[in-house]
């Protein structure tokens, strides 16, 4: 008995019987080659030409050939299935093109402009057409840091409390406020800038400053953070709130000790998404924070630079090889920041799901 069992154990190999057989794989590759040939014919003998012609020609041929082949081999339902698969594959391909293209261009054109002086010098002693080693982004980086940081300080309590009002208090005005917050997230950023300009800068302070920039960014950030926070709070099962209340806690104790800790990482994600939303904003900052070339640490007085402003100015006032290199390097620094923030947000939210 035991020997037989042992032999069985030895001969059992982990396999994946549901995987495609060599024959099925050959069939798929055959489809692919046939589609390629058809695309070649289309590009050669019809009006289609260029890269785009190849892409669409191949798409059209692949969809029709795999549909027909699948129809002949396995019938209509399987053919419909394969049609949907190939169409959605193509849609993904189309969606990725611009993103990959932006990333590729910015990295390939920007990395040559990166140098240490970028982070230690500002543009007060240099013009955009100077050699790239002359001057740097210090003013822009400091300005972006201060303004986004201040915006975060203003946004955080307002948006989290708004989300709590919508999900926990569920007051009489919840519906109207939810609608307003949603509408606010569609406000064009230049409107936020003009609002601060006309309501505070012109009538009250009468000068550009980083604080005004931070206020304009807050207007854009609040709806993003509030909506994301609301969505995470809605995921908390009601049983958890009831458990807290049934233990004799007041509503605010329950919210502070049970609900908020349970979504802590979701709220962090909401905040990071809010920061990522505004870190690249250009228009409102041009209007209210002015554009500083000198490093300015004081948010209440004097114009303050920002990374988007640096990019904008290098592009607009330039026209030389140097200024173009400056523009791409600025874009790359900004892009790295945004990608870093999204990566952190993703990491935090994935850690929650596991834990």
């Amino acid at each position, binding site marked *: 008995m035991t020997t037989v069992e042992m032999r069985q154990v030895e001969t059992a190999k982990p396999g994946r019987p549901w995987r495609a057989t060599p024959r099925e794989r050959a069939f798929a590759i055959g489809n692919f080659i046939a589609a390629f040939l058809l695309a070649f014919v289309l590009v050669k003998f019809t009006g289609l030409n260029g890269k785009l012609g190849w892409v669409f020609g191949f798409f059209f041929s692949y969809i029709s050939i795999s549909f027909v082949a699948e129809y002949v081999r396995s019938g209509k339902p399987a053919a419909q299935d394969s049609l949907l698969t190939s169409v959605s594959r193509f849609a993904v391909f189309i969606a990725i093109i611009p993103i990959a293209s932006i990333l590729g261009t910015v990295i390939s054109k920007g990395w040559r402009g990166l140098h240490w002086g970028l982070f230690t010098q500002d543009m007060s002693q240099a013009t955009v057409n100077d050699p790239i080693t002359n001057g740097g982004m210090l003013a822009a980086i400091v300005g972006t840091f201060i303004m986004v940081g201040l915006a975060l300080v203003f946004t955080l309590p307002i948006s989290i409390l708004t989300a709590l009002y919508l999900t926990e208090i569920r007051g009489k005005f919840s519906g109207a406020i939810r609608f307003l917050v949603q509408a606010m997230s569609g406000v064009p950023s230049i409107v936020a800038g003009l609002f601060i300009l006309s309501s505070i800068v012109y009538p009250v302070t009468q000068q550009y400053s980083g604080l005004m920039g931070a206020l304009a960014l807050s207007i854009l950030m609040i709806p993003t953070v509030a909506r994301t926070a609301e969505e995470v709070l809605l995921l908390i099962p009601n049983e958890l709130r009831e458990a807290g209340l049934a*233990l004799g806690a007041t509503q605010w104790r329950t919210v502070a000790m049970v609900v908020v800790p349970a979504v802590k990482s979701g709220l962090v994600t909401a905040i990071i998404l809010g920061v990522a939303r505004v870190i690249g904003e250009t228009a409102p900052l041009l209007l209210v924070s002015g554009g500083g070339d000198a490093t300015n640490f004081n948010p209440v007085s004097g114009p303050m630079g920002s990374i988007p402003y640096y990019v904008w100015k290098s592009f607009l006032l330039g026209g030389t090889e140097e200024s173009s290199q400056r523009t791409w390097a600025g874009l790359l620094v900004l892009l790295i920041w945004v990608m870093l923030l999204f990566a952190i947000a993703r990491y935090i939210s994935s850690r929650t799901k596991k834990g």
Partner: protein
Amino acid sequence: MDDNQNLGQEDSQSKPGEEKKEMKTSTTPRSLADVASNRSIKEPGTNPLGSGLEARGVHAWFGSKHALKDVTLDFAAGTVTSLIGPSGCGKSTFLRTLNRMHEFIPTAALAGEVLLGGKDIYASGTDVTKIRLRIGMVFQKPNPFPSMTIGQNVLSGLKLAQIKAPNTDDLLEECLERAGLWSEVKDRLNEHASALSGGQQQRLCIARSLAVRPEVLLMDEPCSALDPGSTFRIEETISHLAKTMTIVIVTHNMQQAARVSDYSAFLLSDGGPGELIESAPTSELFSRPRDKRTEDYVTGRFG
């Protein structure tokens, strides 16, 4: 102080524990009435500790829907009462009116009185958080707080209600012990509650509600999401707890009602609001129901 007395009583009253062993070893199938009559019925008022609960003409509505009609029912101190009836008969709604959880549903409305120690918990000026401290609740789905460890979960009630306790280590052990979970978790109090099985989580929730020392414990189908082994452990826990507090349990499982409760109440809705059809000592309700509808239900002819 009170609890020390309770613990002393537990030691002297060893009889229910023996019964449990008897039940477990018996292999012959028995009728519900047999199971129920095997329990020694606790007379009302035999336990001087804690307060009884009295529902007086309780009605409940959700919006314009009349969900519960004129329920008058006494829960004597130190007894276990089970509420039985088919789905939608209003037993959970009724249970939630007993510690004012009903009012969290936005469209909810209520009429009638619920007396705890003779005082209406719905009287104006009543501090509702104090009421819920005295009347604890265990829910259908285990709902430990995910952000807290096992130990923090047990003591969370104290923090939530801002109660100062002198020796939380002792309290922690006592509550877990009473909930029948101590031996399983004593070495992993710092782990997160999500590491526990469903049955353990439910007993953790029981331990959590015990930490604020309620006089009454309401249980809303506490075993419906659990396997038979966990169910058995929780029933043991209930029998144990009944020596020191008043328990009201909603259950769909009539075997369970027969096993754990001294008194049973049958609720039924014939399309309209749920009504109390009959309440009696459990053995009586299962062996000699007065109402035809109760008999049909407990013998499994409908519902």
